[in-house]
């Protein structure tokens, strides 16, 4: 298969776009398209300060690399979760994130959950009802809290994550299966800032997961290849596998699923009676009014302390 731009040997064929590109033109295309998505969805401007949530994986490191190439003011945040899983998962992913930042002379903030909160994510999961021995729920809550806190403390205008289209399609699939209207309302390339909550954006939301892996490979980005030991058997992976089966038979099915959803949302299909907008006002995922946590100042759906602060207090005793 030949590169559509130069006729050289292609390294990746993107069937959904009917586009094959070589190792020189593929990364160029990814960078150009990312800039296009940043503009199309009004994610952020060159004058704004961006914080990239970096896990040491292919998506987040590739995202940071792309933003760096595009000349954005992008700092990184690595959150140490204290996950070992017999493979030194957290320590290795931190090493790779630090190496990446050092090679490009980028600023990386490291927050260690065990150092700051006294327990690793797996230990918190074992000791809380939220976790019920499932670390992912605790991990998600903790990361969202810390990402927002560090963004605000550092004066960043926007927090960006490396969610790719497969991530977004899997979340959409799960929320659609259960018709979770509040989450559907809030899903999108950008989530506007609210009181106590920084703006969030997902510049890679239209790239397939294999495109991001290919980008990391072609660019020589060293990333943690091993999966988080706690993600084995997760629903998100199961949904991705189902969607990939569909994609294999019908190229473009995943992209169409996500883009059609965004179009439907834009047309007002998911508007709530409360705000009639796009769910980005002072309302939570279920349309409920948000208040601010008296301990950390971040938004919470119930009066009093937020879920994160309650969880931290419960393990401290």
């Amino acid at each position: 298969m030949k590169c559509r731009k130069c006729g050289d040997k292609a390294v990746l064929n993107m069937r959904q776009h009917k586009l094959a590109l070589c190792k020189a033109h593929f990364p160029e295309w990814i960078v150009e398209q990312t800039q296009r998505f940043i503009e199309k969805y009004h994610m952020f401007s060159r004058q704004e300060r961006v914080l990239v949530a970096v896990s040491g994986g292919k998506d987040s490191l590739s995202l940071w690399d792309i933003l760096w190439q595009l000349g954005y003011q992008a700092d990184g945040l690595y959150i140490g979760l204290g996950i070992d899983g017999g493979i030194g998962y957290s320590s290795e992913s931190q090493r790779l994130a630090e190496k990446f930042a050092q090679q490009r002379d980028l600023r990386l903030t490291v927050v260690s959950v065990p150092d700051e909160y006294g327990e690793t994510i797996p230990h918190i999961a074992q000791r809380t009802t939220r976790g019920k021995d499932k670390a992912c729920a605790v991990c998600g809550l903790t990361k969202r809290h810390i990402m927002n806190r560090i963004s605000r403390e550092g004066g960043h205008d926007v927090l960006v994550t490396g969610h790719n289209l497969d991530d977004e399609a899997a979340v959409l699939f799960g929320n659609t299966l259960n018709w979770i209207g509040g989450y559907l309302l809030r899903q999108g390339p950008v989530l506007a800032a609210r009181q106590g909550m920084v703006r969030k954006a997902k510049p890679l939301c239209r790239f397939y997961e294999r495109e991001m892996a290919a980008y990391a490979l072609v660019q020589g980005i060293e990333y943690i290849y091993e999966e988080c030991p706690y993600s084995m058997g997760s629903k998100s992976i199961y949904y991705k596998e189902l969607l990939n089966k569909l994609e294999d038979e019908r190229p473009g099915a995943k992209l169409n699923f996500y883009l059609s959803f965004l179009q439907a949302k834009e047309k007002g299909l998911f508007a709530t009676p409360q705000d009639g907008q796009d769910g980005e006002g002072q309302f939570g995922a279920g349309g409920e009014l948000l208040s601010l946590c008296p301990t950390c100042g971040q938004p919470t759906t119930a009066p009093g302390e937020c879920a994160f602060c309650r969880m931290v207090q419960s393990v401290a005793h």
Partner: protein
Amino acid sequence: MTDSARIILRDKEYHVKAGMTVRHALKKIGVDPQAVLATRGGELITEDIILRANDVIKLIAVISGGQA
């Protein structure tokens, strides 16, 4: 010399007949082509590449999960 090619995914190794495409070989061994990238000699290759005898194809798994 054999007329087969080797396909490696993590700690698993498969032997397939040379002469078929990467895509066909992946289907044959039950690997979803959407879930992997194929490399030969450290270089990415597309699914239409025809496997040669003694080729060693390393697959890179691309799916990651968990809660963001």
